[in-house]
Structure formats: C-alpha cells, structure tokens
C-alpha cells in the first residue's frame, strides 16, 4: 500500500540517521590532539578492553563533549523546527527572539558588576563558574518575556513576534556595545567574544544532567504538538477551524523553545546556526510532516554538532576550534545550497 510505503520510508530514514549518529560517536571519541584509534575506542566500548588511565581520561572528556553535542543538537534541532512552523518562516529559530544578544548582554553585565569574575591585570578570576551561565540564562529569559509580551499586545501574530524580537535585539546590541565601549577592558571584551563562539567543551557532567532533562521534556512536548505544527503551517484560521488555538500554540512553543535555547546558550554559548540548518536538511529527507520532522531534525542537528566538534578538534590540531565556528563554516555553504535549490 502506498501510504504504508511512505510512512515506512520515513521510519527507515530516521533509523539510518540513528545509525549514522551511533557510528560517528566512536569517531568523535578517537579524534583530537591525543591519539586514540577508532578501533581502540570500539574495543573499549564494546569488548571492555582496558585502556591506559591517560587514554581513559581523554576519552571521558571527549565523551562529555559528544554527549553535550547530542543533547544540545536535540534541543536546538527540535526548537528550530518548531519555531519555523509556528512563525511560518523558514529562517526562524528560537534565536529569532533575540536570545543570543540578550545572553551576551547578561555575560557583559555579570562581568561589569563583578559577579561574573574579577579582573586583575591579564587574569580573570571566577568567584563561581555558574554565575556567567546564570546571568546569560536570566537575560535570555527576560528578553523572551519582553518579546512575547510585546507580541501579545500586538495580537501574537507571527509578524508581531518577529518585529518585537528585532526591535529588542537591536536594543540589546546597543546596550552591549555601550557597556563594551565605556566600561569593559580588553580582557573582558575578549571573554564575551570567546563566550559567544559557542563551544560544547564548556559543558560539564552536572550541566549534562540539566541538558538531558531539558532535551527529554522539550522533545516530548514538540512531538506531542507535531500535528498542531502541521496545522499552524497552513494558517491560523485553518488551525483554529480544526480546533487548535494557533495563538496559544505559538506562545507556548516560543516559551518552550526559548527556554531550551536559553539553557543551551547559558552552558555552551551561541550555536544559533544549528537551529536554522538542521530542519532544512531534515525536511529534504522526511518531508514536512512534523511527526517525523521533529525527531529527524533532532538527529540531524546532533550529527552535525558532533561532526563539527570532531572536525574542530583535528583541523588545526593541537588547537581545538569552538564548534560554533566550524559549524558555521560547514553549515553556511550547505544552507545557501539548500536555499538556491528551492
């Protein structure tokens, strides 16, 4: 039957993506300045072969990066897909709400007030490693709340949401530039710039637990909403006529996506590009039905992030490039290709 063939093909694509992700994990564990072969990693993973303490430590650090990549990818892939649907805009993402600039401003304020760390000469000493992520997270949430409130006042249409976000984004950018220009020294500015690169290496084991819970809750919510996303892409009236309150779904989705993106940004910096590119790649594979598109986007984003992080570790070895840079280098041409293909 034709219908069963369509659905089966999509499930197979998802299974293939899971297989690619599973294959890429040992590859990512083996890549980097410290040499471990792919085979050694496989032996250690599947046959329990003992490794030297040094190798084990390196692998654990890399495993943390890989898990961070998978979880961050899942959150950003799903959030990007959901936002593109509810805003009916193929270039939308949770970062469209202006989260990245707001979070960067949060980091600047943390440094300016001294909460984020004190500067002495060329050394920044941190009072608490969680202060900067907390400031970034809180500022991203404040930005989300302001944008949604403004959009709510303007009727919660997709246009109102985007315009409110753009206006606030410029405002935050101006504030950030003002603080950098007047108050921060070179070291602090460098820290903000470095923070904004986006790097999975900053994510520790404790943060991984928070990321895991976020990714799990967020994916359940978005998959449960998948039929509503299908309807939302057809227009608010169509959605409402089918019993779905488009404005409420838009509001809820924006809150959930922004929350997920804010947590990710607080822990790893700005990896906004992933939200844009992964839904487009996933769409090419499974089409626009969100029941398949949401999980496929999560998988594509996870694969891209783990792959980009691996490339960033060997391309200029022994220097490790932040994943935000490698991802944009790989993803930009890909996105341009996809756009031109349309």
């Amino acid at each position: 039957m034709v219908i069963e063939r369509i659905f089966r093909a999509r499930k197979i694509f998802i299974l293939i993506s899971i297989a690619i992700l599973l294959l890429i994990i040992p590859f990512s564990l083996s890549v980097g300045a410290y040499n471990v072969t792919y085979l050694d990693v496989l032996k250690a993973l599947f046959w329990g072969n003992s490794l030297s303490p040094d190798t084990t430590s390196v692998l654990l650090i890399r495993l943390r990066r890989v898990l961070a990549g998978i979880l961050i990818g899942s959150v950003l892939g799903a959030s990007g897909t959901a936002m593109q649907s509810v805003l009916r805009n193929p270039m939308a993402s949770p970062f469209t709400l202006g989260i990245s600039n707001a979070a960067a401003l949060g980091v600047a304020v943390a440094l300016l007030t001294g909460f984020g760390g004190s500067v002495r000469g060329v050394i920044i000493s941190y009072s608490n490693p969680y202060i900067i992520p907390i400031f970034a997270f809180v500022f991203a949430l404040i930005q989300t709340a302001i944008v949604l409130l403004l959009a709510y006042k303007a009727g919660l249409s997709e246009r109102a949401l985007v315009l409110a976000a753009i206006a606030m984004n410029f405002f935050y950018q101006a504030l950030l530039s003002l603080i950098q220009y007047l108050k921060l020294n070179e070291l602090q500015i460098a820290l903000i710039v470095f923070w904004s690169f986006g790097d999975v290496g900053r994510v520790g084991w404790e943060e991984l637990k928070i990321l895991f819970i976020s990714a799990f809750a967020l994916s359940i919510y978005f998959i449960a909403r998948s039929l509503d996303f299908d309807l939302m892409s057809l227009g608010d009236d169509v959605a409402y006529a089918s019993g779905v309150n488009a404005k409420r779904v838009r509001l809820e989705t924006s809150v959930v996506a922004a929350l997920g993106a804010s947590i990710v940004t607080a822990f790893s910096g700005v990896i906004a590009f992933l939200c844009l590119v992964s839904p487009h790649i996933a769409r090419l594979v499974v089409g626009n039905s969100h029941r398949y598109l949401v999980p496929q986007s999560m998988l594509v984003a996870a694969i891209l992030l783990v792959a980009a992080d691996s490339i960033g570790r060997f391309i200029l070895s022994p220097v490790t490039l932040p994943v935000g840079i490698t991802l944009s280098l790989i993803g930009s041409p890909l996105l341009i290709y996809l756009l031109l293909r349309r």
Partner: protein
Amino acid sequence: MVIIRVVDVEVRYDSVKALDSISFDVFEGEIVAVVGPNGSGKTTLLKIVDGILKPVKGSVYIDMKNVVDIPRKQLAKEVSLVTQSTYVVPGIKVIDFVLTGRRPHIDFMPTRKDIEISLNALKAVKADNLVDRDLTELSSGELQRILIARALAAEPKVLLLDEPTSNLDLRFQIEILNLVKSLSREKSLAVIMSLHDLTQAYRFSDKVIVLKNGRVYTIGRPDEVLTENVIEDVYQVRVRIDRVLKAIIPVV
C-alpha cells in the same frame, strides 16, 4: 432535521456592522448557497457558523447546541470549513495534509483508524491516487478536491465552503460542485457555500441566501430567489434568466 439554526445574528468589526439580523435554518443533507456582492458578509457568515467569529447579538446553534457553549475541539468534529486561502507548504504530502483534518479526533498521534478515514475521504473525492503527491505538485482542481477531503476527514455534519470554485477553470468548477452535491446526498451533509457565480448557485443549491450590506435581502429556493429584479437590486446589474439553460446571463 434542522442541523444549523442561525437566530438574529449581528457581527461587528470594531464599530462597523458586518452582519445584521441574520436568521435562517439549514437541514440535514441540504446545500445552501450564500451569494451577494463583495463585502456583503459571505465569509463572515461562514466564520460565524464555524465559531471562528463570535456574534455581538443573536446565536448560532449546531444540532440544537449553542456554538459558544460547544468546546472548540468538539465543534471542529461537527463543522468543517474549507477556507478560501490555505498556505501550501512544500514538502507536505497529500496524506499528511488530509490527516491534519483528523486533528479534532486525535489526542496524541494518528492511529491506523485515522489513516483509514483519511484515505476514505480521499476516495470520496476521487483523489486517492494522489496520496503520495506533494501539495505543490497539484493542479488547482486537484488541490480543491484535497481541501474538501481534508474537511471530510473530520467526519463532520456540516461542511462550509468559502468560494470553492474561485481560481478554477470551468471544468473543475462543475466537477467540484457535482462532487459537493453527491457528498451532501450520500453523507447527509449540511453544506453552506459562498459563491460568486449565480448560475452555479442556481444549479447546485437547494436554498439560496442573498446578502446585501450584511443583511439577508432574501432567502428561499433558487428559482424563487434568483430573479432578475432581485439580482438587479442587489448587484446593480441587469440580467436575463434563461430557464431552459438554467443560466443567468448579464445584459449589457
């Protein structure tokens, strides 16, 4: 049996009255055409019946229940609206699109039964051969049939069609209206459709509501209502009605 009862409905867009003192009944299996000049309130009337707009005065009853008291999801099971404009998103296959019509019946994920009902809806509009096609690949006539299939997938008692023949060539117009007529008869569906073409309203409806400036100018059987005088009064155009051809011909 009366399925839709509209009683003394008034609708306002800010201070402007869009509909005023509208009352009529629609019976099971009846096809009602709503006609009138642009801006006379045809689409607003459909949105009122579907509960998308709320009247400032009067009430709409579906199966003797006031629309404002019916939960949105329940109402969506009973009334299906085919709007004039739908975003046609690339990458959506016909079956996925028709499945969205089952949303009022689905709590989490579509079941095999939902898929079967969607497929039956496609069969009803003779479009089951298009099941794996992308929406963007369809012709206007095919797309209109798919839009109706999507509405049927909800298994409604009432089907609302907002200008179902606009953007279609003559062959597809006749095809769609024949389809609507046979669906209404087979499934005892109450149908309200807004139309611009008076000849089609004359040929394919059991009852015609003529709107002028948001009010019911007249209502009744097509041959009673669509007279040369009524049309001239409402549209400010002189026409001649050919009873043999069942056609309304403008006279210049």
